[in-house]
């Protein structure tokens, strides 16, 4: 039985359960992707376990016309946007039914139909491309805002400076979303900048910014909603920094031996999924049985995705020579 292939943009309603649900899907997807990688030696995967609230909170605030640029840690953004776990996993495994026909693998997945465009695994790549995408929006009279996800590491690349400055001067409709997860591969953010908040770098360009608890999905959604409103109203870019933490390693496998165990433990206590589950249990929106049922349902979906992905054939060798020129 193959999982259905979803190509429609997910529209989030007011139901907070949907936020939780999506975060759980992402978590289980990424853990499965990591497992598959270990078992079958699939191409190197970067997960964003611990950062689900940022992905879901921001994407939930977007409209269907808005566009997304993402990077090497894209699964959360794609799944929140409605990507099919089956096709995403197929792509991660380099299979024909993946979003990019298997050519991307897990590192540069775009899904144009979902408005997830031009994913680059060059750190900073998304910052350089976002201005162009936003210029198209602006000049071609499209209303959608461009949400550009990037890390605290990308903020150290020169393109961050060039992109923010140009976006400010040209008043481009970009929501810069910095997922400050305290890590830049194997380097702690603290070693790379004197400030703790990347948002502090936005103001001198004339870009408004805000910092939000990136592990609180409802807070992120609210902050992103406000930021988007500000962009649409003022016709100026905005930088939203989500303060979060990369709970797994840089890529799979990574024993995280270099991570301060106390810091890691303290952030584990702030796991965005547990946080939201506790909140919804607390508010009586769901009970433990409901949660368990949800877990089972999502696990089944991920199982089906894995079956689909593994069953999907590799692309034909002739594909080596296609899609080079238009």
């Amino acid at each position, binding site marked *: 039985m193959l999982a259905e292939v979803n190509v429609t943009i997910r529209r989030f309603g007011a139901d907070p359960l949907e936020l939780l649900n999506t975060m759980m899907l992402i978590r289980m997807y990424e853990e499965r992707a990591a497992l598959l990688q270990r078992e079958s030696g699939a191409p190197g995967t970067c997960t964003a376990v611990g950062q689900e609230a940022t992905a879901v909170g921001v994407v939930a605030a977007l409209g269907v016309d808005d*566009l997304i640029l993402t990077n090497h840690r894209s699964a959360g953004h794609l799944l929140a946007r409605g990507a099919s776990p089956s096709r995403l996993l197929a792509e991660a495994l380099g299979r024909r039914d*993946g*979003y*990019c*026909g*298997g*050519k*991307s693998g897990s590192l*540069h997945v*775009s*899904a*144009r139909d979902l408005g997830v*465009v*031009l*994913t*680059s695994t*060059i750190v*900073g*790549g998304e*910052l*350089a*491309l*976002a*201005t*162009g*995408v*936003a*210029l*198209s*929006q602006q*000049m*071609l009279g499209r209303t959608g805002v461009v949400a550009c996800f990037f890390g605290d590491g990308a903020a150290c690349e*020169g*393109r961050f400076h*060039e*992109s923010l*400055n*140009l976006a400010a*001067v*040209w008043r481009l409709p970009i929501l810069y979303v910095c997922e400050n997860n305290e890590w830049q591969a194997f380097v702690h953010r603290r070693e790379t900048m004197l400030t703790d908040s990347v948002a502090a770098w936005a103001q001198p360009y004339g870009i408004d910014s805000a910092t939000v608890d990136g592990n609180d999905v409802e807070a992120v959604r609210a902050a992103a909603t406000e930021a988007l409103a500000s962009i649409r109203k003022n016709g100026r870019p905005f930088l939203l920094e989500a303060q979060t933490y990369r709970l797994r390693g840089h890529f799979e496998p990574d024993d995280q031996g270099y991570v301060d165990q106390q810091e890691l433990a303290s952030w584990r206590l702030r796991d965005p999924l547990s946080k939201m589950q506790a909140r919804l249990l607390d508010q009586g929106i769901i009970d433990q049985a409901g949660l368990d049922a949800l877990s089972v349902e999502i696990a089944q979906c991920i199982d089906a995705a894995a079956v689909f992905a593994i069953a999907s054939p590799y692309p034909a060798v002739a594909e080596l020579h*296609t*899609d*080079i*020129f*238009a």
Partner: protein
Amino acid sequence: MKPVTVLEAIDQALAEEMAHDPRVILMGEGVATKRKALLAEFGADRVRNTPLAEGIIAGTAVGAAATGLRPVIDLLFAPFLCYAMDELVNSAGKLRYLSGGQFAFPLVAIAMTGAGWGVGAQHNHNIEAWFVHTPGLKVVMPSSVADFKSLLKAAIRDDNPVLFFVDIGLAHTEGELPAQEAAVRLGEAVVRRIGEDATLISYAKTVGVCERAAAVLAEEGVSAEVLDLRTLKPLDEAAVLASVRRTGRAVVVHEASRNCGVGAEIAAMLTEQTWATLKGPVLRVGGPDAPAPASYPLEQAYVPQVEDVVSSVRRLTRSAAAA
């Protein structure tokens, strides 16, 4: 018709394509200041001065190209492309492929290069071979006023990223534009002079060097064909092969360093494919493996000389089995 310079031909091509297609926009450091007529005709929205940051100029072009615009960017001098390599190579050249064909990148990046203005190696570095070596990009480097115009138009209409190099030494040369413009496609070489004994293969400024060499050779009774590649990628292999199959001798001439240059590719390709008809090795005349000096006489000496081309042909014609 009044003769125009290469720079004017470029302006004409830009103006005509911008008039033809509202999606064509022009961006770069000073384009709106220096190309006032374009600014006046098409407005500040489509003719955009940018901050001084080649990376984001190129990145903006790449992002815009994938989503509906057809940007032309003026990156001034070729060495400045070093700041835009990620956007040109890793994004424009690869993201169509890596996305399984979801995006196309119709954009043109213009840059000047070559000897003539004594500006030194940080303004003058013939790096076209880098982009020929790189997947997903096209590379154009014309030699005649008419080609500058028609090939820039073709580059703008192409659905792929095109590097368009302007040889500085040609910038102010004048030429006639044909009354009836020929629709040239990228990837078509042209024979500048017909010959039977050897083929001189070149592009940009050194096409002229080859033409002068051919004239010298003619006096010696050697008839040299001069082939102007015009587009370096895609390469007009058929034209190169046809000529060399006929003449049996070839010299490739360019100002860029020989080492891994376009001449190396053509020499290797010709040797592989025309071995049986070759009367001698394919020879190369190219710039030294050195940065370009600013000092004027040194800079001139950097460029392949007529005499170098002539003596290469002599080497091929005088010894039946050369080397």
